[in-house]
């Protein structure tokens, strides 16, 4: 009964990982015979300007994207936590991009924010612009983070609302009787009580964003001048230039390690939380 799942999973997931580790130790270019070169590709990871820049972009996007989704998620969860028809509507509205392909969302936003997009065409009539949302090297990264936050904060809202609904009503009423303001209640009672959910959401956001690819392809295609290339983007564009498979797989193995490390953190946090919940 186990065999089909184990076989498919091993061949399609475990074997490629082993192949990736092997290739990353060679100078294979896709055609030649692979020569074993040890850890040379890994040493190059830290010297290669494209890789270090993509690494930095990935960290910036992951960090600010995760914080942005978390912050907005919390702000709106506090607004939308009561069970009410209207709140349910607004939660759904915040959530819907989560079910649409990131590739399509990126294309939609690039049609809106491009030089010839809806926003710049409107600004032009007002005599402003064009604003290089996607064509200014610094602004493009900010735009990318903005679109990612737009697409992902609704998921955080739903997580936090689920957490907030478990905060006992009596506790908040007791604080109200003691004269606490809504802000004090939120800061001193509600947010500390859902802090485990906040931690899990933060790590989920980070794990998701560290491998961000689709939305980069469709929104900016790595540009302008490579300023929005992430690690995942770089791996896939390099591997298909077909010249430096060994190096690209070293990047891939690096990404796996970072992603695995983050996921281990998730699991550890979740276990701690489960134990806390059980006691």
């Amino acid at each position, binding site marked *: *009964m186990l065999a089909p*799942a*184990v076989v*498919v*999973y091993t*061949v*399609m*997931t475990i074997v*490629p990982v082993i*192949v*990736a580790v092997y290739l990353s130790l060679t100078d294979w270019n896709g055609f030649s015979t692979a020569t074993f070169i040890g850890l040379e590709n890994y040493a190059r990871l830290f010297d290669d300007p494209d890789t270090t820049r993509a690494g930095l972009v990935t960290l910036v996007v992951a960090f600010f994207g995760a914080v942005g989704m978390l912050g907005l998620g919390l702000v709106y969860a506090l*607004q939308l936590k009561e*069970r009410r028809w209207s709140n*349910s509507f*607004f939660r*759904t*509205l*915040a959530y819907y991009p*989560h*079910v*649409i*392909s*990131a*590739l*399509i969302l990126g*294309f939609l*936003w690039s*049609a809106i924010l491009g030089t*010839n*997009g*809806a926003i710049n*065409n*409107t600004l032009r009539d007002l005599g402003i612009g064009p604003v290089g949302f996607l064509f200014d090297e610094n602004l493009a990264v900010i735009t990318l983070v903005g679109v990612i936050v*737009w697409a992902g904060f609704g*998921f955080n809202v739903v997580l936090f609302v*689920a*957490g907030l*609904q*478990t905060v006992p*009503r009596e506790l908040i009423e007791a604080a*109200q009787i003691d004269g606490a303001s809504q802000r004090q209640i939120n800061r001193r009672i509600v947010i500390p*009580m*859902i802090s*485990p*959910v906040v931690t*899990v959401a933060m790590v*989920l956001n980070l794990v998701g964003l*560290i*491998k961000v690819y689709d939305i980069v392809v*469709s929104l900016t295609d790595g540009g302008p001048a490579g300023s929005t290339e992430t690690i995942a983007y770089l791996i896939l564009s390099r591997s298909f230039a077909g010249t430096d*498979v060994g190096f690209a*797989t070293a990047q891939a*193995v690096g990404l*796996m390690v970072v*992603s*695995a490390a983050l*996921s*281990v953190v998730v699991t550890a946090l979740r276990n701690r*939380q489960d134990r806390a*919940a059980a006691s």
Partner: protein
Amino acid sequence: MSLNIFGGAARAVRPASQPPADTPADAHADTPADPPAGQQADAPRARRRRPSPIRIALLTLLFVVMTAPVYLLLVNSFKSQQDIQNSPFSLPLTRISLEYLEAAIHSPQYNVLRSYGFTLLLVVSVDILCILFAGPAAYVIARSLKRRTQILLLFFLAGTFIPSAALIVPLIYVLRAIGLGNTVTGLILHDVAMTLPVSIFLFVGFIRTVPRDIDHAAAIDGAGRLRTYWQVIFPLTRPAVVTVLILNSIGIWNDFISPQILLSPGSGNYTVTTAIYAGISQYSTDMTKVFPNLLLAVAPVIIFFIYMQRHIISGLTVGAIKG
């Protein structure tokens, strides 16, 4: 203190002795019978009559920012290039036309509407194979007392750590080596492997809540293990099956990396995402093609989402947290 971040969704993961849990069990059921809802209703209602200006501002902003892209998408799918350029936000009722949408529907190249068929085939094949493989495997893992089998769960969970961007290039060489390079079969098997870890994990968690006595009863009646699973346990795990199906279907439907890289453009098989990608790379400046095609790509997902939103939101939340 119990902090249940899984909200209502966790309530679905209960022994099967309860009534079918999926209808009332989602996170946002506004059932009046729900005691917390009743309690919560009293106190805020007094204050609710006059929402604070901050709330009004925040919700207005939310509404505008979330609906504007969809509004632009809808409106501009029916306008000429000139109208899109000159007045992107307006809807000139006298000049709107269905011709652009029709052109997209009948487009000979990168036809999004036709790609629904292939994408659906992919989703259904992966869903079926995933359930067929993950279900029995999860059953064995959930019921086994052996440490070796328990470790198998960790083995599968390791798969969730691997980003597909990192996996896909070496996978090409593996697929070529076993004669599945550039084939739909190869893509389907890869997709199944991607969905197995979370599916098995969710199934194991659910099957463990089903009392073992049920297995014993089936065994006494002469059912083998496979038969016990499919005829007795599987029907009892329906809420988990629904969650897994939603999670996998949305994941496969929206997947871009795998079909883009495992199927060459020459194969003629396009999913919605790869068709859009190929199309937009070609006609990127012709907005009368961009908007209608994007509309066609988004429409089925939005309709499905509106129709099934409670299941989808709780399914994706459970899948993300537990997976």
